[in-house]
C-alpha cells in the first residue's frame, strides 16, 4: 500500500511544473506528508524520492537538516506548540514561559505528552518580537502569551489536528 495519500501525491504533482528541477519539490513534499501524518516515515521518503527521481538518501539528507521534520520513531503529537526563547522574547519572559509549560506537561522541549496530544518545542526568534513572549501553534503566531493563554490554546478542541 502507498504511504503517500492521494492528497500528498496531488500536491507534489501540482508543484512539479513550478520549478526547473524535480528536487525543488522536496520541501513542499515533506511539508504535506508531515502535516498529514505528524512525521515523514522512511517509506514516505522512498516514495517521494521515486516521484522526484532522487535517491531516498537525498530526501533524508534534506529532511534531517531541518529540525522541523520528524522521523517515524519520533512523531508529532496532534498539536505542535513552539515557544520562542530568543533574546527579545527572553527579555519579556519567554524562557520562563517555556520552562513553566514543560513543567506543567511533564515533558522536555521536543517531547510529546504521553497521550499524544501535545508536542512542545523551543523556537528561535519567530519574527513576532513585538508580541514577546510569543508562541507558534502549527504555523499561526500567538502574541503576548501568558502560561494560561498557552494552556488554553493547547486545550482547544479545534483543529489543526493530524491523523496520528
Amino acid at each position, binding site marked *: 500500500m502507498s504511504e503517500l495519500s492521494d492528497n500528498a501525491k496531488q500536491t507534489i504533482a501540482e508543484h512539479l511544473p*513550478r*520549478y*526547473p*528541477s524535480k*528536487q*525543488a*519539490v*522536496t*520541501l*513542499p513534499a*515533506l*511539508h504535506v506528508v508531515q502535516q498529514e501524518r505528524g512525521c515523514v516515515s522512511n517509506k514516505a521518503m522512498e516514495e517521494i524520492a521515486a516521484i*522526484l527521481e532522487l535517491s531516498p538518501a*537525498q530526501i533524508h*539528507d*534534506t529532511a534531517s*537538516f*531541518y*529540525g*522541523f*521534520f520528524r522521523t517515524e520513531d519520533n512523531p508529532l503529537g496532534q498539536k505542535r506548540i*513552539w515557544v520562542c*526563547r*530568543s*533574546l*527579545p522574547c*527572553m*527579555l*519579556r519572559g519567554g*524562557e*520562563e514561559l*517555556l*520552562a513553566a509549560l*514543560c513543567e506543567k506537561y511533564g515533558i*522536555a*522541549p521536543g517531547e510529546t505528552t504521553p497521550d499524544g496530544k501535545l508536542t512542545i518545542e*523551543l*523556537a*528561535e*526568534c*519567530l*519574527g*513576532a*518580537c*513585538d*508580541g*514577546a513572549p510569543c508562541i*507558534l501553534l*502549527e*504555523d*499561526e*503566531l500567538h502574541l503576548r502569551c501568558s502560561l494560561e493563554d498557552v494552556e488554553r490554546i493547547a486545550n482547544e478542541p479545534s483543529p489543526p489536528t493530524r491523523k496520528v
Partner: protein
Amino acid sequence: MSQTEFKPVLLGRVGRPDSQSLASYRADGGYEALAKALKMANTEVIDVVKNSGLRGRGGAGFPTGLKWTFLPKDVNGPIYLCINGDESEPGTFNNRVLIEEDPHQVLEGIVISSFATRSTTAYFYLRYEYGRCYRTLQKAVDEMYANNLLGKNILGSGYDLDIYLHRGACAYICGEETGLIESLEGKRAWPRIKPPFPAIEGAFRRPTVVNNVETMACIPHILKHGTEWFQSMGIPKDPNNPRDAGSYGPKLYCISGHVNKPGLVELPMGITARDLIDKHGGGVWKGRQAKAVIPGGLSMGFMTNAELDTPLDFNGPGRVGCLGLGTAAVVVIDDHTSMVDVLYNACRFFAHESCGQCTPCREGTAWSTKILERIRDGRGKLSDIDLLLEIANSIGTIPGTTICGLADGAAWPIKTGINKFRGEFEEYIKSGRRSQSHALAGAH
C-alpha cells in the same frame, strides 16, 4: 524632511479597511507604478532604482539597482528573482507586518523588479512560521492572476511572469541568500562559496537576484514618486567618504525588548536610537534605564546607553563599534538585566543556527556558548573573558575562514558585549554567582 511631518509610506495603508484586498489597493493607486514601469524599457527601470539610492533592507545594505546590473547582458534562458522572506534575525518582524497588512504593495514591487531584471519566474521564499503571511499572499497572488497582473501578457504589455510561494522549514540560515537558494532547490541550506555570485550563477545554476521583502515594498513608491522624492528622506552621502552610498528613503524600525510600546514604526532613515526608544517605543519600561541596545538585529552587537544618540542610518552603528544597521531591529535591554545572560542567549542562538559547514563557525559558536554556560553556572574563570574575545576575533572573517556571514554576525555580540561591559563580566565571575535566568539546562 523633518521627522514630525513624515507620513508613513510603506505602512501608509496599515489599518485601512480590507487593506489586503486588490480592490482596496487599487483604490489607493495600487499597480499604477507597475503600469508605468511596463511602458518603460527594463533598463530604464533599473536606472530609476539605481538613481534613487535604494539600498537593500535585508541586512547588508547593498545598492539594489547596482545588484541588478550584475546580471549578464546576454542571457539565453531564464533569470530568477528570489524574494527573501525568511526573516529570522532576532528582533526583526517588519516583513511579517508588510505581508500581513499590505501584501499587494510587496507583490507590485516584485512584478516591477522581475520586469526590470528580465525574470519570468519569481520565487517567494517565506519562512514556515509565517502561516498567516502565506495564506494572505496566496490569496493576493490568486487575485493577481485573475486580474491580468500575473501570468501571460501582464496588463497587455507582452511581459509574462509567474510568482510561486515557497515555504521554508524553520532554519535561520535559509535567510542567507545562497542558503536560501540551496533550500529552494530542495537541499540542505548550506550557503555556497562565492564567487560565483547569484547574479551569475544562482538558483538552478541560473542568473538570480535575491532581494528582501521590505526592499520590494519600496520599489512601487520609487517608480511612482521618483528618485528625488526618495532622496528627500534620510541621510545623504558622506562627502568625505567616496564609498558611502547614502541612507535614503523611509525605513521600518522594529522596536522590542524592554520598552513600554514594542512595535513597528516607519521613519526617514537616520533617527537616533534614543529618539526611537523615547518617542516611538514609549520609553524604557518600569521607569528603568537602557543598559544596552541592539541597533539592528542580534548580529549587529550592542550599543551602550552613552551611545544612544547614534543615528540609525547605514553608517551610524558602525561608528560606535557595531557591525552596522542590519535589519534596523532595535532591541532594548534594561539596567536590571545581566549582560552575561544576554550574551549567553545570543551565543546559543548562533550555535543553534550555524549550519555546521565551516569549522570556525561550528566550533566557535558552540564553544562560546559552553564557556558562557560555565560562567552562568558560577564556574567561570577570568581568563574565559579573553578566550571569548579570541573566539570572536577568529571565527568570522570573510573571505577567509567561513563561507557566509553568520559567523561574523555571531562574533559581534561577543566583541561588543565584552569590550563594552567587561567590568560586569569580571564582577560576575569573581562573585561566583549563578544565573537566575530560567534557561532550560541542556536545551540547545
